[in-house]
């Protein structure tokens, strides 16, 4: 089995990628398979496509749809790795583009991976019948003896100094949800209640810089325990986990939070840190080794019978093995792939991506490399070399677009720009009326987007063969084009 992980350009070296895929790589290869990390840019124009299965990770835009289209046409397995649940919030206006992407790529998938049982259950609802597999994040191997010593030393130091060195670590913010440091602030009362004679709490917050807004800093100050803030790095996380008395992991019960992985708790436990998790019992699978109550933790600390200590490490090892031992995960993944039926071939054919609001230039470029025509609505980012730009009176076509016109239009008069190779075709030549110019910004962009997309569709229908697939791409809210799907070869949603 040759498995290719497809990542956005910047993600190859990210912590998440290393934790999930790089740690799996060696174990997977030990079984005689290969696992490679690839960027989408590498693959989208690659005619070779030599792997058996392609796992698309964190590319929730039309590029992955284009790639998936090509891969299915080449008879490959295509899957997505789902970490966060942006899809079942069907009434949330902020995630229209994500749901649209999901609807576009879903028909092209032959499998899906998740990292938690709860997300797996959600996928059953979202993609019924699609083969899916839970791949736990593999943890790093640990040295039993040093972890045991570390547990004992940390407890001893705490009892001696009467100081609880509490660590909160991780990504502190999310652009859409109140998580991370917000949870820490909301559950700050737990830390205050730990601070009772003779105990003193010293909190260290290890997080990303972007999370440290004025609001959060104000709220952190109001928790009321001595607090120190540091900027996150992997090395510093390991160092602090090795020195902390207690890792504090609060979790709220919003839908987004309840499907998160066990990663942070696993990281803390494998480093030998005690864990206090409050709020939603996200880490219930690890309950025997972590605390849900500060009083219980203090009692155990005083009595030198902490849940994580040398005597309980074998049990911890067994529990963690269920949650992500690399060799176990690799074997299960290989078994899953071996059981997948051969993917049904999909017909290849011309496609065009219609760009709306908020699309980034590299997405446009990637689609062009992937062999699709790029079409600009008035709301698409300007000054990019689209293949088709529909204007109020005419249509500007690239050489590639002109070559793809319906044969009946091959003789239609066009103005040719010798420098750029582009040509301009008057709308009247298509029997279409002159369009109104719709402002690309401001309230008109919101209110008239649907009409704009409708007009563009009408023009495209006149320009290209009915066998052309149109995919709508938009990345910025608000959206009014509704859903589009590849199955019926037409833009949906526009009135």
């Amino acid at each position, binding site marked *: 089995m040759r498995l290719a992980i497809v990542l956005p350009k910047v993600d190859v070296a990210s912590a998440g990628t290393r934790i999930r895929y790089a740690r799996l790589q060696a174990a997977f290869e030990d079984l005689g398979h290969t696992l490679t990390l690839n960027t989408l840019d590498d693959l989208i124009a690659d005619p070779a496509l030599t792997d058996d299965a392609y796992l698309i990770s964190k590319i929730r835009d039309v590029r992955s749809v284009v790639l998936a289209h090509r891969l299915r046409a080449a008879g490959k397995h295509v899957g997505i790795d789902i970490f966060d649940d942006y899809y079942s919030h069907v009434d949330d*206006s902020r*995630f229209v583009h994500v749901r649209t992407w999901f609807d576009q790529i879903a028909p092209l998938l032959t499998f899906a991976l998740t990292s938690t049982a709860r997300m797996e259950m959600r996928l059953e609802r979202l993609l019924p019948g699609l083969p899916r597999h839970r791949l736990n994040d593999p943890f790093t191997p640990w040295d039993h003896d040093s972890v045991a010593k570390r547990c004992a030393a940390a407890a001893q130091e705490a009892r001696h100094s009467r100081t609880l060195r509490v660590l909160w670590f991780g990504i502190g913010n999310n652009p859409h949800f109140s998580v991370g440091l917000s949870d820490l602030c909301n559950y700050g009362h737990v830390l205050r*209640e730990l601070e009772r004679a003779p105990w003193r709490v010293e909190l260290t917050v290890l997080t990303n810089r972007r999370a440290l807004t004025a609001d959060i800093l104000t709220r952190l100050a109001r928790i009321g325990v001595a607090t120190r803030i540091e900027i996150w790095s992997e090395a510093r996380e390991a160092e602090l986990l090795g020195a902390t008395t207690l890792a504090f992991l609060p979790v709220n019960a919003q839908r987004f939070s309840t499907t998160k992985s066990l990663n942070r708790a696993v990281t803390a436990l494998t480093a030998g840190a005690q864990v206090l998790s409050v709020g939603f019992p996200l880490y219930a699978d690890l309950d025997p080794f972590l605390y849900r109550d500060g009083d219980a933790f203090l009692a155990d600390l005083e009595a030198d019978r902490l849940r994580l200590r040398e005597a309980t490490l074998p049990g911890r090892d067994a529990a963690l093995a269920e949650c992500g031992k690399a060799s176990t995960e690799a074997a299960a993944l290989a078994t899953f792939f071996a059981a997948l039926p051969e993917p049904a071939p999909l017909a290849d054919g011309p496609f065009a991506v219609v760009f709306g609001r908020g699309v980034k230039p590299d997405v446009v470029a990637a689609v062009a490399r992937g062999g699709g025509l790029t079409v600009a609505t008035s709301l698409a980012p300007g000054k990019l070399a689209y293949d088709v730009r529909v204007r109020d009176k005419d249509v500007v076509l690239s050489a590639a677009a002109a070559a793809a016109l319906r044969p009946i239009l091959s003789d239609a008069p066009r103005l040719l720009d010798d420098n750029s190779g582009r040509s301009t075709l008057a709308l009247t030549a298509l029997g279409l009326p002159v369009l109104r110019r719709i402002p690309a910004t401001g309230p008109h962009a919101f209110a008239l987007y649907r009409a704009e997309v409708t007009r563009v569709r009408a023009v495209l229908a006149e320009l290209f063969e009915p066998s052309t697939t149109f995919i709508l791409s938009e990345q910025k809210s608000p959206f009014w084009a509704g859903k589009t799907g590849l199955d019926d070869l037409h833009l949906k949603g526009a009135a």
Partner: protein
Amino acid sequence: MSTAPGPAESSGDYDGFAAERQLLATSSYFDADWYRERHPEVAASGLAPEVHYLTIGAAKGLRPSLHFDPKYYRLCAGEMASANPLLHYLTSGRAAGLKPRALFNVSADRLSPEEFPIIDRPTDPAAPIAPALPPLRNAADVETVGRYFSRLSGVPDSGGGPLSAQVLAQASQWLTAGSCRLVDGWYVAEATLRLRFDLEPAATPSVAASTIAAGTFEAVPEAPTQHTVPILSAYQFKPDAGPAMPRCLVRVGRVELGGAGVCFADLALTNPLMPILLVLAEEPIDADEPADTLAPVLDQAGAASLIAFPSLLRKGLHYAEFAASTESGRNIANALALGRNHLAICLADEEKPFAVGRVVVDLSTATGAEAIFSPPLLRWLAAVFGLAVEARIGDEVDDAVAEHLAAALSVSGTLEPARGRRDAAGVLMLPPQAIPTLAALVSRHPVEDARLGHYLVADRRSAMPRAAVSVAANITALEELQPIGAAPLPRLWPAGDGAAPLRGTTSFPLAIALRDPAEPDSATMLAPYAPDAMGSTLRTGFDPDAIEPGDLVVVAVATDQDRTADLLETLAAQSLGDLVTVKLVATNPGVTDGPAAQIAKRFGTRLEIVTPNPLLAPHGLAAVATAGGRYILSVHDGILLHDQRTLETLLTLAAAPGVGAASCVILHEHTVKKRRQIAFASGGWFTTAVALTTAPQLVFGRPNTLDAVVNATYPVVAAGPDLVLYKAEALALIDEITPNPVEAAVVLQLGLKMIEAGYRQLVTTAVRAIALDEPAGHNISDPASPEALPLSRLAELLDHVTTIREVTG
């Protein structure tokens, strides 16, 4: 104060300053440690702090301590103090009555943290700077305060006769009226309450004149040359300290109140809501270990007072309630008085049942991180009010989440309701973002009908108030017109199954909604319901059989070709676009040509161009009134409808019994430098400020507190005029209105007429429209004139509409 010089510091050849150095060393206005720490040049100079100050620092204007402000002193003292202001103060300025720093008059009406001195080391309260106050002692008053404290904290009463709120007030006078008076208090952290005392030294026992006259104080004689520094200690009962000690008394702070000036005490509260006992004594009270009884503390106390509900203080969870209760005088004395009022109701007349017997939280949008789930709040409700918070679980809540949230509401340990108050009382139902007000918790108004409740809005982060929302009393059937998924408004049900119909509102706020101050996303602002999740936006679904061709007429005022085309475009895209008849009121020649004409063709015969009648008021309402149809939408081409469900939503509202007109929230987008911001305007008019003590100065305008307008449908004085859907039979009342060239006046008068005739006008947040032009000025003076609305009818008007009043801290 000063300390010995550090190892690297030199006193140098400065014997000539010996007297001055001695003066500084014995004065608390010179703090050597603080001075060294504050000004790095001191350590770098190698000089002892006092020497540095005498030779360099004073001339440079460096501050010698927290308590002395050289700039302020120079302003007061003038040129005489320019050389060395501190020495001047110590040698002559103090005797002359000059102040060492600006001491603001804290009895002023509006307090804000900016008015208080900057605290550099808040954990180091000012040390006594001079011996001062003799202690006071009144055993009976101390005992009374102690009993109130115990009872309110949930400790069973050991007897001793009825409690007297008047005695409590008198016993507490020393706290805010004596020579060591409490002048302010606020939460510097969630469970840290900072109290500020202003101290005035006195050679004789300092008591309020009234108490001397009443003979209620007994001054303990002291040697005339010797004074002891009274020590203030603060205590709380900590509920549920464990199985072995269900409650224990914990000292949460202590400070010596000596000398003159400002003194701060930081109280590390065991629970930020539980009552606080303040005790003044000559000697430190031996109560370092938690105790289960108050007796040892009271036995040693010279005076006692009670902060019954500390959460009323600034940045406390109930501060919004205090701020909303008064337009002026938001000082600590009034906050304490409000607390005593609540206390008196809470502890008096126990045979009369409380209004609230149960608190139920709707879990449908809960995350478990809201304030109502916090253990300190839950323990306080149980200990003080005998209340447990229950969960109402809807179908949309995940089972595991519901189980977790319901469990999170249970109070652990041995805590049990302290009183049997909840037998025949009402049910307070809250959205998860809200906490109950003190007024609701102590109220003994009988609950006979189910009522919606007024509520307050506060910032979740800082607990600072934002707005007070008074929900309309006349709200029959409004529930079914609320947006889908909207968090329920707080309400009070009589004991029972909660199925009784809602009748009116409570007379006091039921809850404080703690809102996250985060900027809303433009998507959720413009389209609160996702455009790809098409369906009804209101609980009552749209009934397509309720409308036939010709029923719905749109009267659109056209001023500009392109704008008219845009408006028609969005009308055509509406879900009811195929059913509308459009009457374009062309205000300019040619406005319906060009692009507008192209789009108008889509309507075919359903579009008619109307020329405005110059004999009538030059605005759309004249055409609206004669438009025909059962429902008439009045709109102009400065409005765009981007949500396809706008017309059907307004139609659902307008079709409801008793509704005369409906509108929606209107947003306007404008660019500020490189950012794009969305300004909010309501489609209806609220009273934003009402003065009832003078003439009825109603000020109509749009709510300027966005987050106070919850996702809801609410009645207004008048909907529109930018976008409003009228029911034709209600619109007929326009014939009874005095003609007025100002459209706003006509719309307002029509609104009042409708209310008089028994109609309501509604505005909903379920759908939103966009205004191309910036909304008109915020406050519109009442154009109807006082004669149109006599004072006697004001209360009736306010019963019919929702009012939003800004409340600032």
